[in-house]
């Protein structure tokens, strides 16, 4: 059992006091970030990257910190779903369906506790899945040549819209914009200046961390202002917790099923956490005939929560082994890795086993911390949730700008950040997704260099891109990922809408 011993070494790293400290800090921050409506996990991780960077944390510590933030945000998302009926992030939407009715019935504390347990089970099982699947996939990916990588990157963009994607052309457009931003700067292999217009600041290209914070955090602030959402929303009061062992045992099967489904959805390109929690919920509803789903059934809280946490860990599999993230937040984590000079992908498992297994072990540790944090201390988070956004959002914006400023101590970076914020606002208004832009900026250099390698090796013969079975397979999936949502997407969306509408009728 090679994996086992590597994992044990990982635990040796994850259980040092320093790592545990970062896991705890990350878990607390993450839960907060997830709980505050409008501050999704991608946003939160993006704000923290420049901080981790300028604090000079080691790669392992930064990654432990940010993966715990990521996991914490998935836990936190449920708090606002249950208490406010507003999902903290998209995957937490399904938790609203039964979580909020439970809270209205005066069982808010039970709903929070059950969802915490389900989240724990979801993350735990999916992390085990990650331990088993990641090394296998990494070994397999060693067979990839440059043309396979090029196809894989194309696949990542094609499936990013997900099965529920609305307009595939807009995803494509966003990807092109991101890749175009990535081409700005001096071309690494020839030294030719591209799109710099002679400006010194653009020689090194556009810093994607600045772009991420601007696109996510600053545009969010503008949307808050526009919607007059400064006062926040009325939340349901939390009662005293009365949870028996029987209540927990009743939701266990639902949690396990949700966890497995979620993990699978997370690993697969184009599925993601939203679909994971949706599938878990619908399956659970069909599976258990005599429930009162939609009216506050505990199993209806457990299944989607386990599903979305499972998917969150599952999404780390393609990110770590192939260097191709499947969701917005994993894209942001990838940004972190790249800026630390670590290139994810199959070689990561060979060159930096300490880092990979340290982080995986830290996910187990973080998960326990989160469970402890989220059951007895949920009250503190609930209190913080009641601080209206009119005080919180400006402070969050301030922290984001301080983070950006402290990386290079240049006001110019802040101008860029604000510029990207305005751009993000406009793009969201015309419904262009932001994640493909980020992914384009991140993957652009790699994608271009694999194209070049492939073509140089083949002496300019473009058919090299399609000449192995593997690359043809990848292109086929990419094409399916682009076309399938146009056919299936409307059906799935209609189903999701019906699930929501049916609940409102009750």
């Amino acid at each position, binding site marked *: 059992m090679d994996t086992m011993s590597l994992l044990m070494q990982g635990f040796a790293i994850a259980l040092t006091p320093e790592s545990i400290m970062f896991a705890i800090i990350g878990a607390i921050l993450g839960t907060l970030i997830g709980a505050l409506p409008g501050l999704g996990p991608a946003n939160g991780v993006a704000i923290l990257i420049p901080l981790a960077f300028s604090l000079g944390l080691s790669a392992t510590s930064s990654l432990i910190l940010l993966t715990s933030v990521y996991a914490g945000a998935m836990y936190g998302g449920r708090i606002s779903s249950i208490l406010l009926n507003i999902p903290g992030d998209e995957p937490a939407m399904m938790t609203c369906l039964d979580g909020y009715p439970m809270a209205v019935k005066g069982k808010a504390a039970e709903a929070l506790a059950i969802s915490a347990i389900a989240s724990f089970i979801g993350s735990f099982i999916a992390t085990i899945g990650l331990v088993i699947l990641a090394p296998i996939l990494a070994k397999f990916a060693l067979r990839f040549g440059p043309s396979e990588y090029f196809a894989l990157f194309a696949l990542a963009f094609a499936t990013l819209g997900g099965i529920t994607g609305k307009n595939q052309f807009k995803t494509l*457009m966003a990807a092109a914009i991101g890749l175009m931003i990535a081409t700005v700067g001096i071309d690494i292999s020839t030294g030719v200046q591209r799109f710099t217009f002679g400006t010194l600041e653009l020689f090194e290209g556009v810093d994607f961390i600045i772009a991420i914070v601007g696109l996510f955090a600053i545009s969010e602030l503008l949307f808050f202002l526009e919607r007059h959402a400064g006062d926040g929303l009325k939340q349901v009061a939390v009662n005293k917790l009365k949870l028996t062992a029987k209540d927990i045992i009743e939701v266990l099967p639902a949690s396990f099923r949700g966890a497995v489904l979620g993990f699978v959805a997370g690993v697969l390109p184009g599925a993601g956490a939203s679909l994971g929690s949706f599938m878990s919920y619908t399956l659970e509803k069909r599976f258990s005939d005599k429930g009162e789903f939609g009216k506050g059934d505990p199993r209806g809280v457990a299944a989607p929560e386990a599903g979305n946490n499972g998917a969150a860990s599952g999404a780390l599999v393609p990110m770590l082994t192939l260097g191709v993230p499947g969701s917005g937040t994993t894209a942001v984590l990838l940004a972190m890795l790249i800026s630390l000079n670590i290139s994810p992908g199959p070689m990561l498992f060979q060159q930096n086993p300490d880092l990979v297994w340290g982080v995986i072990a830290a996910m187990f540790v973080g998960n326990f911390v989160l469970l402890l944090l989220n059951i007895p201390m949920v009250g503190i988070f609930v209190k913080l949730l009641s601080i209206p956004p009119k005080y919180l959002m400006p402070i969050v914006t301030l922290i984001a700008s301080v983070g950006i400023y402290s990386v290079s101590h240049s006001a110019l970076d802040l101008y860029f950040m604000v510029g990207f914020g305005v751009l993000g606002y406009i793009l969201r208004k015309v*419904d262009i997704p932001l994640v493909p832009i980020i992914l384009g900026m991140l993957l652009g250099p790699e994608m271009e260099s694999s194209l070049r390698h492939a073509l140089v090796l083949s002496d300019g013969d473009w058919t090299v891109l399609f000449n192995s079975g593997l690359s043809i397979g990848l292109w086929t999936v990419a094409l399916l990922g682009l076309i399938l949502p146009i056919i299936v997407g409307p059906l799935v969306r209609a189903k999701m809408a019906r699930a929501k509408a049916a609940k409102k009728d009750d």
Partner: protein
Amino acid sequence: MRINDRVFGMLMLILAVAYGWEATQFPIPFGGHESVGPETFPIMLSIILGISSIYMIVRPDPDEKWAPSAMLIELSVVVLAMLAFAWAIEPIGFMPAAAIVVSFLSWRMGASITKSIITGVTSSVFIFFLFNTVLELALPLGLLEF
């Protein structure tokens, strides 16, 4: 109305053409032509962007409503305030600049004047000391430097 997508698609089409044209103008790199030069990938991108913007013009989605013009002016003021903050960090110092911009933002989001000033001042002082002493990242003192 389906005007947003049409206008945006048009802008992106212009960008695609300009970007693609610019790529064909790259100087020939040292060592002569290769099968893939610095312009190959950008040209591919400009084609993709071009196709998707034409699709956007031909089959636009329904518009999301823009904010009324009063709100757009307000948003521009907020953006200007953030730019001013970026400019002011060094000459004026982090604490005063941050206090002003945070108070302004929270006032614009609907907090009362006193409460927004309290938020601005406490958060900027707290963050300054957190960064300078605990995290040891120096933020400029500016006017407060003696």
